[in-house]
């Protein structure tokens, strides 16, 4: 079964598909180990982690593609990539879609923001005319080689033109060939319900950090979302913010240590050397060494 088909089946299953946002080797392997069936690559996380800048369209197509390919190569989970605005017009989208499909992704999200885009939960968003985005979706749908490679069409219009425009846009995107709809930064529970009820395709929503309400979207649990008819929920900011929290906590203990205190083992603050090795599949490397690199085993 192609990754796209697998992803589509997971989205269409009666249970809501819950996907943490992944962005690097660590988050990918942790998500996989925790047993998630699919994951959504967070464009914000990729930009912040690999390029050190917030999600303001600083990262370009090649940077995004390189990381997405790496993530797809390192997991069996079907992955959805965040292709931002498609990095140009509908013609650009043709090549962007092909590239992500060839890179081993299962689904591609494309959004209707003006470029340079920004995180959907920041102020100052602008959206392109519906007509232009319809062309981009059509171009993506035509460009795919595997018909099951999923096109997820996202609108950021809620903050700009309101929920009725969101519904209008998503319906047009589905008509143009989108398999899944994504409405970012919906303002209320009622808006989420209204969108679900008025579009002819599965809906995916974004619950950000998972553990923290933002001013832009209410925090709704997966169970509640499922009851409302939402097909998929992503938590793009869950692991980036948890990783940074983990590093911050560690820096506090590190500061104490620098000031001369004897270090105490704080297993709550770090994983061990062995655990991180196992997470990164060191045993697989050892097996390959054992099998092929017979001379490498001499020392120590």
């Amino acid at each position, binding site marked *: 079964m192609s990754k796209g088909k697998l992803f589509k089946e997971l989205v269409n299953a009666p249970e809501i598909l*819950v996907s*943490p946002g992944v962005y*690097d*080797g660590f988050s990918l392997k*942790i998500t996989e180990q*925790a047993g998630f069936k699919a994951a959504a690559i967070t464009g914000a996380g990729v930009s*912040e*982690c*690999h*390029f*050190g800048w917030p999600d*303001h369209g*600083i990262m370009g197509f090649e940077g995004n593609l390189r990381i997405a390919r*790496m*993530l797809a*190569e*390192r997991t069996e989970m079907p992955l959805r990539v965040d292709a931002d605005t498609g990095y140009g017009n509908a013609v650009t989208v043709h090549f962007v879609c092909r590239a992500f499909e060839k890179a081993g992704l299962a689904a591609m999200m494309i959004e209707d923001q003006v470029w340079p885009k920004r995180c959907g939960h*920041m102020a*100052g*968003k*602008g959206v392109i005319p519906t007509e232009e985005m319809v062309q981009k979706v059509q171009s993506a749908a035509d460009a795919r080689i595997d018909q099951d490679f999923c096109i997820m069409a996202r609108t950021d219009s809620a903050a700009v033109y309101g929920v009725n425009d969101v519904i209008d846009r998503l319906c047009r995107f589905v008509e143009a060939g989108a398999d899944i709809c994504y409405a970012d930064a919906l303002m209320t529970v009622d808006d989420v319900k209204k969108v679900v009820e008025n579009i002819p395709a599965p809906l995916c929503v974004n619950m950000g*950090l*998972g*553990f*923290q*309400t*933002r001013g832009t979207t209410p925090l709704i*649990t997966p*169970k*509640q979302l499922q009851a409302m008819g939402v097909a998929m929920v992503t938590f793009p*900011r*869950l692991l980036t*913010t*948890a*990783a*940074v*929290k*983990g*590093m911050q*906590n*560690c*820096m506090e203990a*590190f500061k104490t*240590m620098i000031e*001369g205190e004897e*270090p105490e083992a*704080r*297993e*709550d603050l*770090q*994983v*061990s*050397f062995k655990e*991180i*090795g196992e997470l*990164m599949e060191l045993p697989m490397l050892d097996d390959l060494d054992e099998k092929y690199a017979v001379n*490498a085993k*001499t*020392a*120590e």
Partner: protein
Amino acid sequence: MADTKSKGRRLKDLIEAPEILLSPGIFDGYSARLVESRGFKSGAISGAGLSECHLGMPDRGLMGFEENLSNCRAIADCSDLLLHADADTGYGNAVNVYFVTQAFEKAGMAAVMFEDQTWPKRCGHMVGKSVIEAEEMVEKIHAACDAKKDPDFIIKARTDSRGPLGLDEAIKRLNMYAEAGADLLFADALLSEEDISTVAANVDKPLTVNMGLGIRARSTTPLVPPKKLEEMGVAAVSYPRLLTTSAVRGMINGLDAFDEMVKANEPIDRPDLCVNFEELNDMLDVKFLDELEEKYAIGGDK
């Protein structure tokens, strides 16, 4: 007032200062920005961290030169830290090292480290290491020193010979590398405090050591607090595994609690597990982007 000294010069000043220089290991935008925000002046880019984070692979020589370089450049482009690059074995012979040195200097590093392992290398604290001939490594150090444009760009020579060949050989090698022009010496995976004291007392250039996770011991090297290292005559210490292991711990803690949330009927607020959105954006210097927009992107939708 802008500092007109080169990055290499500024890092050299910190290494030569009486106080020991602490460099947490960094590997991505988050760790670089966090370390800088905590007031550290320098960061040691961890080759292990780069490989794990950006390639999803353990530190076993699977990351190539170009990948290492582009990730180092990205860190230099978002940070004012004085950076140490980890150039592994230099990706070939002494001729490769010549070009690798120039590339890392141009990418905005203050120092570059070369090690005397055979390729494919592995993390210095893993079993199965082996080293090249000392004479071959001396040629690599020669090439690196000849290649640099800024005479203060720091060449850090690392030996992994303590495990396979013993302490005397490690000291002998470090002095050969010093004579070849290395500015900073690094003996990885020393086995005891006594080892560290002995090396510090017997090498001709400043010594730097690796204290791994920083707040957690590993079996290969004892955990020695920086004050004690300073008393032992160590000039600099890096903590390459400090932040990768804590980032992973943070993510695991987050996902453990997430599991409860997925089953819950009401949202759960856990500010202890995640930084908030504003704090994250502040750390990533979103303010700078806002200022640029204010100044130049006046046609943009506000």
